[in-house]
């Protein structure tokens, strides 16, 4: 078990290092990162001064080492637009995105898992086909369209919910539904497969032979075993929800890190954009690790095998 954890931890560290490296090089794709950071209309002299100040005139390997050193000290630099440390600017917005992602996860799990179970149990019936269509639609729905449709229905036509901004829990309902719809499909598909896999096993036949109804067998035995892959999906979905928040937050003017990233691109505040991308990617790596470890914890076969 300890060997398994250590190897997964090593992989996660390697992936994190890879993420930092890729972001470092993307920021330098345009040739001169200084140009990304100067305010519009800066003179050549100011640009040269800033380049020297930020160390972009040094050799690339030294820049990379300095970048890693800064990040290790949690120094994400200073926003030249807002004249404040980037860490504070981003940290201020994180609770909003966490609230949105939690709401969306609730929607995804609350609808997706029951839908998946019903699809597996009602296999081959009209109910399964109807739900399959529903799931496929959720998967193909662009969040910015479903978001706007929700705004049209509940905000404009019915006037039940606020159309944008962060004004209490009511403002969170529509963004959560829009963002959760995609995750819902993932949960439904995975739950269906997991339940179907378990339904074909001998212990289900044995339980049925002992006189349990199909429903009793599912509730009493199948769900517990089918939970293993589904828990993993839940951990993986967190990263996807954070990434999807970029678009949903823009639709609903929800003041999380996704909206911050887009606003910062428009105001040419690239250190903020870089920090948001690093943050979400590192959370993504961390949730992947968490998924692996949970999997091993729940399922002894993996623990022993490794």
């Amino acid at each position, binding site marked *: 078990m300890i060997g398994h954890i250590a190897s997964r931890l090593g992989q996660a560290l390697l992936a994190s290092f890879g993420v930092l490296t890729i972001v470092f090089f993307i920021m330098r794709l345009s040739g001169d990162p200084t140009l990304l950071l100067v305010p519009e209309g800066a003179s050549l002299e100011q640009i040269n001064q800033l380049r020297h100040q930020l160390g972009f005139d040094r050799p690339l390997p030294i820049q990379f080492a300095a970048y890693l050193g800064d990040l290790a000290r949690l120094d994400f630099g200073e926003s030249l637009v807002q004249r404040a440390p980037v860490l504070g600017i981003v940290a201020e917005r994180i609770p909003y995105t966490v609230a949105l992602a939690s709401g969306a996860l609730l929607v995804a799990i609350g609808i997706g898992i029951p839908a998946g179970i019903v699809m597996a149990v009602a296999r081959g019936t009209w109910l399964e086909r109807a739900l399959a269509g529903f799931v496929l639609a959720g998967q193909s729905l662009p969040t910015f369209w479903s978001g706007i449709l929700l705004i049209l229905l509940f905000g404009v036509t019915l006037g039940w919910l606020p159309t944008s901004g962060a004004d209490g829990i009511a403002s969170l309902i529509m963004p959560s539904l829009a963002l959760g719809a995609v995750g819902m499909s993932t949960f439904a598909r995975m739950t269906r497969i997991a339940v179907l896999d378990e339904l074909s096993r001998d212990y289900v036949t044995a339980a049925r032979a002992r006189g349990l109804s199909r429903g009793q067998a599912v509730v009493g035995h199948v769900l517990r075993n089918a939970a293993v892959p589904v828990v993993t999906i839940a951990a993986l979905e967190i990263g996807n929800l*954070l*990434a999807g928040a970029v678009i949903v937050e823009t639709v609903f003017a929800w003041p999380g890190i996704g909206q911050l*990233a887009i606003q910062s691109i428009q105001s040419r505040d690239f250190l903020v954009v870089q920090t948001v991308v690093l943050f979400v990617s590192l959370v993504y790596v961390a949730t992947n690790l968490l998924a692996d470890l949970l999997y091993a914890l729940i399922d002894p076969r993996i623990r022993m095998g490794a």
Partner: protein
Amino acid sequence: MRRISPGMMVVLGLLALFVAAALAAPLLSPFDPLRQSLLLRLKPPGSLLGGRTFILGTDDLGRDLLSRVLFGARVSLLVSVVAVALSFVVGTALGMVAGWYRGAVAVVIMRLVDTMLSIPAILLAVLTVAVLGPGFLNLVVVLGLTRWPRYARVAYGQTLQVAVLPYIRAAEMAGAGSTRILWRHILPNIAGPLMVVATSEFGLMILFEAGLSFLGLGIQPPAPSWGSIMAAGRQYVERAWWLTVFPGACLFGVVLCVNVTGDWLRDRLDPRAASR
């Protein structure tokens, strides 16, 4: 070959319609999609003005929405086809090389694949487009170069399996070089699973193009893209529902058809998947 079900025929027909609309946009459009008129701002669908009918209404600059949606289909199709082709070629080539040579080459390539996959794709695209600047070419290159790892992973696994088969040994003994074996003997045998990946990626690319354009990072105004039309429409959602509903419905419909086709293709190519 199994027969194609009637439902599937409808889906394929709708996709063909999308492609036809995109290709024939200049012929089908009733008006110039860029022509502005302040007198015709935000007219609802079916408006009859000065002897001309605006079937889907007009936008905030008085441009005909139907013409813009048709030209938007063009952008959507072009971006996604080129981006899918680019990522398919890059990913398949790298994956096959990793699977054929194994060893250190494979470790380096597959590590890169794992790392790329640990950055959420939409963020990777947002950051890269933001750095390089928006526009058609940058959009296509960024989408193409951020989405190759999935093909690499599939091509790698498939190549590993195929490379040990007797007919590959036979080709080697007959004197065929690595390039020839990869191109002539391995690629045709791993193309099926790669096509399944390409179909699902095609749907994703259409969504990404629209999403990035919605965020202002894709196709730039005044050129029409479904995403950018909807971004402008978001501001007028209370007065002009048609600006977001129609382009969004097209987007949703096309992606839905692509996803259904992807599932169908996977079931055809892999009967084991169909049985579950």
